[in-house]
């Protein structure tokens, strides 16, 4: 066996980006015979991603008339027609936690907070936020250790800056769908450059070998230092403050883990994606979304993580999409009250998002892995925590599932489930297919048969 003899470098537009210096390059025992998770002939890893769009969907143009295999795609899903055979369309699922249940308005904040947790978030716009753990974070806790990043949380809009976000709900709810535990939302990254740098380092080619080792040694001592600080402080402070320091310590430990796990990234040079380092946040929405999706594909492809989430916007977004002729705000037109102009507007937006989804699926599907593609080895859920935007209901959600995590289930079908079947039953099933057995998740009352 031999180490990697040449520098493993990503060549970009005028930038040469080095992958983190790997133990393997110095021929460490770790490298001996470690199969590439990407090109290896063994079992390819399973990946999961959850994508979210706000304000529900105009359901008449989403739900096919027929169930089973012989269903016709309606207008909104047409852009992903080429992936019909790799898709399962799941109708009839319900997100009960997003309902008011006596808490009044605030469907948007509630629906995104409940989307991946199945919990009923506590109505507050200040302290004492409380939700549930989200499926991606649960999976990350279970299997995240196998990759450098347990999970990646991405999106387009950062947390809102001001004001209560939705009828008495904190912005922490409406701008975060990932929750590490009931009180800790996981902020998302919106800058593609930052994602790239996290994945592949800043590309200081000279910063290698001894210098790099020394730098890491220093970094570890700094982490040790602050960890001592935080532990000592935590013992002295009251309960509310302790919670903050626990967040701090958790963050520090995560980073330590990444530092130690840097050697887990093994990408043969031939398989290194030829992708330029993005130059900041694009001003155009479409370009921004596509770049973030490309980052997601890179992250999966290099097995930097197996779990990702992506928010097309924050909850209740009133963004307009003039680029596709949708001049009215998204939220405003979702309450169309049968007004034709508004319906046309919301349809355009719904269809546009699916067009962008197509970009993601296409990229995933063009990465060959073993006999199939990266898409085949993934399960990609796309949908919203609101059903029909006009009604703001939380039953019969628009949920589409792409890929099968390596043939865990059949695809190419439209399935309809009995009224009030919890969306979280699907999560129990997906976790199961991911190799994580749970008795229940959120408000689940069984495991979905798909």
């Amino acid at each position, binding site marked *: 066996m031999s180490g990697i003899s040449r520098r493993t470098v990503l060549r970009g537009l005028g930038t040469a980006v080095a992958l983190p210096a790997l133990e393997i390059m110095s021929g460490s025992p770790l490298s001996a015979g470690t199969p590439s998770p990407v090109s290896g002939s063994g079992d390819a890893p399973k990946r999961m991603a959850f994508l979210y769009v706000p304000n529900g969907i105009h359901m008449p143009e989403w739900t096919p008339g027929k169930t089973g295999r012989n269903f016709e795609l309606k207008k909104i899903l047409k852009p992903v027609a080429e992936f019909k055979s790799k898709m399962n369309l799941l109708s009839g699922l319900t997100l009960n936690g997003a309902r008011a249940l006596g808490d009044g308005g605030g469907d948007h904040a509630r629906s995104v907070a409940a989307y991946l947790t199945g919990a009923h978030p506590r109505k507050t716009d200040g*302290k004492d936020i409380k939700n549930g753990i989200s499926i991606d974070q649960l999976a990350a806790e279970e299997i995240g250790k196998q990759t450098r990043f347990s999970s990646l949380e991405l999106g387009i809009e950062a947390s809102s800056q001001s004001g209560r976000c939705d009828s008495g709900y904190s912005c922490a709810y409406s701008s975060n769908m990932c929750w590490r535990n009931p009180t800790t939302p996981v902020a998302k990254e919106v800058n593609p450059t930052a994602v790239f740098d996290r994945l592949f380092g800043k590309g200081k080619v000279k910063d290698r070998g001894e210098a790099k080792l020394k730098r890491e040694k220093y970094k570890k001592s700094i982490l040790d230092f602050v960890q001592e600080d935080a532990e000592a*402080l935590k013992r002295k402070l009251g309960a509310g403050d302790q919670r903050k320091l626990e967040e701090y310590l958790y963050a520090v430990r995560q980073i330590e883990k990444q530092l130690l796990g840097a050697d887990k990234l093994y990408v043969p040079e031939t398989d290194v994606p030829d992708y330029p380092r993005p130059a900041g946040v694009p001003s155009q929405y479409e370009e921004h979304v596509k770049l973030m999706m490309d980052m997601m594909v890179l992250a999966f492809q290099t097995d930097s993580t197996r779990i990702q989430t992506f928010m097309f916007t924050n909850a209740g977004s009133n963004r*307009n999409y003039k680029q596709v002729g949708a001049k009215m705000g998204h939220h405003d037109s979702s309450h169309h009250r049968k007004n034709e102009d508004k319906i046309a507007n919301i349809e355009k937006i719904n269809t546009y998002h699916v067009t962008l989804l197509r970009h993601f699926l296409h990229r995933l599907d063009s990465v060959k892995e073993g006999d199939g593609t990266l898409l085949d080895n993934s399960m990609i859920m796309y949908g919203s925590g609101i059903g029909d935007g006009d*009604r*703001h209901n939380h039953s019969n959600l628009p949920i589409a599932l792409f890929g099968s995590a390596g043939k865990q289930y059949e695809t190419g079908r439209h399935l309809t489930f009995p009224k009030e079947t919890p969306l979280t039953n699907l999560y129990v099933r997906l976790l199961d297919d991911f190799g994580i057995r749970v008795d229940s998740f959120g408000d689940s009352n069984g495991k979905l048969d798909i």
Partner: protein
Amino acid sequence: MPGQILPGQDLSFQRELYLSKVQPLVEKYCHDCHQGDSVEADFDLGGYPTADHVLEARDHWKKALQRIRFGDMPPPDDVEMPDPDRQKFVQSLDDLLNKIDCTGGTDPGRVTIRRLNRNEYRNTIKALIGLDYRPAADFPGDDVGYGFDNIGDVLSLPPILMEKYLTAAELISRRAIVTSGFDFDLDQQTLGKDLQGDGSPTNSLEKNLFTSGTARLRVNIPTDGDYEIEYVVYGQQAGNEPVKMELIAGRKSLRKTSIRAEEDNPVTLRKEHRFAKGFRSVGFRFLNDYYDPKNRDPNRRDRNLIIKSVRIRGPLGREPNLPETHQKIFFVQPGKKLSRDKAARQILTRIASRAFRRPASGEEINRLMKLVKLAEINGDNFETGIQLALQAILVSPHFLFKIEKPVPARQVRRLNDYEIATSLSYFLWSSMPDDRLFRLAHQQQLQNPSVLRAEVERMLGDVRSAELVRNFVGQWLQLRNLKELSIDETLFPQFNDKLLESMKKETELFAWDLLRRDASILEFLNADFSYVDRRLATHYQLDQVSFEGKKPEEFVRVSLAGSRRGGILTQASVLTLTSNPTRTSPVKRGRWVLDNLLNLPPPPPAPDAMELEDQDELKGTLRQRMQMHRKNPGCASCHAKMDPIGFAMENFDSIGRWREKDGSLPIDATGEFPNGKKFKGPQQLQQLLLSEKKDEFIRCLAEKMLTFALGRGIEYYDRCAVDKIVNHVKANGYRISELVIAVIESEPFQKRKGTSP
């Protein structure tokens, strides 16, 4: 200072009130739906036999109060509650939930440790290090609670942010501290072999003085001053004494030294010397040659002096080319009188104390010294060691969080001077205390009310208080939401990001003007001036404003006396941020007034309000359409309070331009308060707010400012403090500085309660 113990609250007033006034009304109007077998909204009134039970569920009851106040409860289509009953209900329930005895020791509340938000982080780095670290703008957004982004409970620290803090610390310390290539006017390195005079080169690099003699070099001294001569030498030892050498400058002997070092371990010697400008000579003389060819040990036969290299640099004492950030940190240098360790300790003590906003402990410095040592062990220089320690300081929880000393359970203590300094500076400047505040804290002067007052006035007068406008006013009035708006630019071709920026700037400059003049806070509603640039002047049709001699983007203060504008409700920023992308929204405007000027946020819409599926197509002007919509009694009660306020602003379109018509129909800008008072147009609305709702407005502003100053939400027990602030402001001409001072002098600002055990 010993803490004060809080007395338990006496609830006899509340118990009496509940039984005599609240409960009868609850039974009469609420029991139908909220008691018995089928309880609406999970709110079972059977569970509240006494006031104690009610107060345990205070938050629930507060929501009920809000709904009763807005006429949303009891449901108007179901139960009729006459106005006198409603007033009585609201008054007595409000007293029950919120009235508190202000004569005894009141609860100052507690504040969860607050992480620096990204704006505070950037400002603090600027003040601490002297660098503007822009990537701070890239940190993930800070979560918002109670309308502000500096709330301890809400500000979280996800791993992704911690990563960014680490990267930032590394970058900042690298930029701040120079670790190599110190820029001296002269930094001349000479290899031994290049020395002139006696001796001969060995192994091509060194100079071997094998007989007594002198090797010299010439150096061109750029200016008079102290220079350091650093020379690396060793000896080939022989005989019964070590190699002896002399360092010479010109003809002057500087130092005689015995060199015991040998080839495998050469010694570095340094000597400072004052040189005059011009070509000078530096010499190395070998003093004790020795040769004994008969020695049994062939390695001990010949004594020679070997010179490996010489470095001369200077002038010392001034390092003009080091960045200011570096000089600020290295305020002492290790040297003759100060060991490296002592210098490092002094440097770290100063920077850590400033970063932690209180004196750093000896133990903390000891631990930081370990990092300095670590760098040394790894062959890095002094500066790198300090750099490493600085990195650790910048990611320490003591820096990233504003931490106050814990208070024992049920006790109350006054903040110490350093904590006051920190609270003050983050409130008024969104940044760390400056040197003067630190000095006053050190002298324990900030407990002294007159000193504190003088400091507040100084701070408000300082340009850094622009941060108070940006962060407090910007969030209070929700100006920050402007950048997230999407306005339909085909309907409003005049609209663009630059105009949006001008709108925001107008309101900021306006507020800044009030602050600088220490004006009355009532001017927010009745000012007769504002600020416009060319873009806004056109937008407002202010043709007579002269921009002669002004730069393209410059704003001028304009008088609005006698015009249609004046006060924030007529400013394009507020009018635009309360509009929809394609049209105005009287609902949003009305709600904005209730929420931000009167602190009376309407309750959220009823759960079924959004699910009205079969509403007929609505026709007519916006007002007519909305009136039809309000026919639904479930919506009507609240909208009757929001919409009429918003209608008064209908003469301003959704980007704040004046208009006479909405489409083809004339605008009707009459509005009405819930109490029936009618008005027309926003200026009358503002006047009415001042005459009828002045106390509510002041209270609203006081509560918002207290929230921002404390970094926590306002609780019922803050009522005494808020009352005091309101009274103080009213008694002192409504001046802004008096509002700020009253907030700072308030108990919740000055004191903390311990957490319950």
